[in-house]
């Protein structure tokens, strides 16, 4: 820790869980989101990693700050972003956001409401995802957003790998808190900022 940083109280450092901390490091370095809930055996459970970050957020923030990352905590999820925002990093954000927008638009076109993607008991089946991916406009957008193949089904796995979406008990695709945040940002877009 740098000299000018205020040292953390010993009591706070004591409650940090070493095992969880190592696992969190592994997930964050792998570019994964840490969501409030996690799907285990087809049911949603509270995520111990998220609780750990939430309870010791100041400490973790300093920790990741020292090694060049910004630990971001939003409503229901946490992730790290590189402090020196370079184009390469934003290309990644573009890919994911473009992919999600394709998914959202396709879902509405099929006649569903967004609840199907936001509700753990529902979810979008592989058949529906394939149906969405057949749209020519969807393929064009995927390619323009940097996804070479333009096959939606292949790229959906990226969302699962990064914990932006998960498969529920029925095997359907559901957005996690971090995926839902993009939807909420879209809904809040254009509102007056207080």
């Amino acid at each position, binding site marked *: 820790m740098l000299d000018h940083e205020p040292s953390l109280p010993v009591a706070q450092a004591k409650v940090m869980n070493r095992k969880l901390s190592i696992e969190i490091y592994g997930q964050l370095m792998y570019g994964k989101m840490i969501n409030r809930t996690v799907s285990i055996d087809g049911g949603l459970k509270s995520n111990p990693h998220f609780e750990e970050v939430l309870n010791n957020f100041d400490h973790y923030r300093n920790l990741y700050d020292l090694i060049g990352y910004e630990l971001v905590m939003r409503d229901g999820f946490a992730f790290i972003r590189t402090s020196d925002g370079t184009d390469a990093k934003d290309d990644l954000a573009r890919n994911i956001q473009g992919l999600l927008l394709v998914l959202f638009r396709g879902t509405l076109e099929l006649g569903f409401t967004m609840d199907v993607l936001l509700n753990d008991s529902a979810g979008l089946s592989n058949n529906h995802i394939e149906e969405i991916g057949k749209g020519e406009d969807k393929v*064009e957008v995927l390619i323009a957003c940097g996804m070479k193949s333009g096959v939606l089904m292949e790229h959906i796995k990226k969302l699962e790998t990064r914990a932006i979406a998960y498969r529920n008990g029925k095997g359907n695709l559901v957005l996690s808190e971090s995926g839902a945040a993009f939807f909420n940002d879209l809904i809040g877009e254009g509102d007056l900022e207080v």
Partner: protein
Amino acid sequence: MVVKTDVALINMIQNKGVFLDLIDHMDKVGEGEEVRIVMYQQKLRALLDSVAPLPNTRVLREVPAERRKLESALCIENLERVGLVIQVDSARGVMVFAPFVIEMFRHFDGARLRHLNSADYELIRASFNRLYEVFITLPSLNREDIGFQEQVSVLRKEIRTATAKMKECVDALQGRLQRLGEIVDQMRYDVIDEVAKAQEALGEINSIYLRNILPALQFLGEHTDLKRTKPALTALTCIGDQLAHYGHDKLASSVYYSVESIRSYRHDISIISGSLMRYVQQSEAHRRAYDKIEQAWNRLYEGVRELHDGSLKDNILPSTHPVFARLNTYSGLKMRVFEAKVEWPDANQRLALAEHLRTTLPNIKISSGKIHQLSGQTNESGELKRRRDARLLAIGILVEEWEPRLTDDAHVAMHEHLKDRLKGYELTDLLMSVGWLRKREGICLIPRYQIGNLATDCESLRYYKLQVETEHA
């Protein structure tokens, strides 16, 4: 065959499903009381087939009696003959049931009762206002006056009608909303048909809220500011006041009770409105989500289409494109590759040498080989280099011996230290010594941006001054 009214009615009631469906359709398409003849005949045929299907051989005699009886009772010609259908317009293909028939079926199911809309409320309000005008302009409010008696009779009738309609409306709203609410609440989000039904139900709830609930609340409001006229309940209260003023206390009391009775429906309507709000907000949230996603998609797709300029290159939207300016949920998200974020210090030759010696020295074995003296001419250049290296080493040792202290001029300090200790000292040696000093651990040389001068008997040196700082300082 003519079938009497009562028998026909009993048959209709026994098969009320057909007529309730017709009422639903009427309410849905909003064509008033008209029913399409084709639709009625289709439903009747389906009913007859379910009651007694036709045999395969189509001979009149073989038609089941039960089917013939039902068909005779419910066929359009018979219903028109006995007055249960009041109009058949073959040119337009529609027919109209007698109003009491429709009302009767509506009463079988609260959800199908007619809701009052703003036009109905306006009629009630206008009638109360008209009666108020009549009561304040009547020349005499005497009990024996026939004109007064007639107006009182009309007043009672209007109040009864208004109360009955309000009750019917509240029952209808409660029943209808319960049915629609069940459709929405029991919807499975991942079944398209159910989602479509729920969307339809939400649309209807929204329409009921705007067309029935809000006008009802407005009708029951007593402080609404209306041009030239009064709100319905205010008009009724004024009539009561007028009657009380002329000594008709009992009559006035009954009017006041009626006002309270109608006013009590405000509570019911408010409760319905409250429970409705959840669905209205849900519908609003769906609409908003749809709009926002559509906007974002259109912006993105427009950006994509602009890339299709035939150049067949650069068909990828840059992340700096304005389309993505507002989408920054994941900006800066980490790549899934290992990044060496820790910045290691620059290579330090001294440390590298120390590390090299630490690892290699223990492995060096002292050779037992013979030492041979090379004969012949001495190598002058080698000898010169050896001497220079020896002098350089001697300067290094002297610099190591120098006791570090804070001083403003490293050159002067080294000059003072070396001039008496180093044999044949020259100012060139001073430059070497400063070089050694720079590498010495625990000492830091900081430029002072001043020029200094040093001179011996035969040499002179101009140099930039360096301040000596130790790490302990």
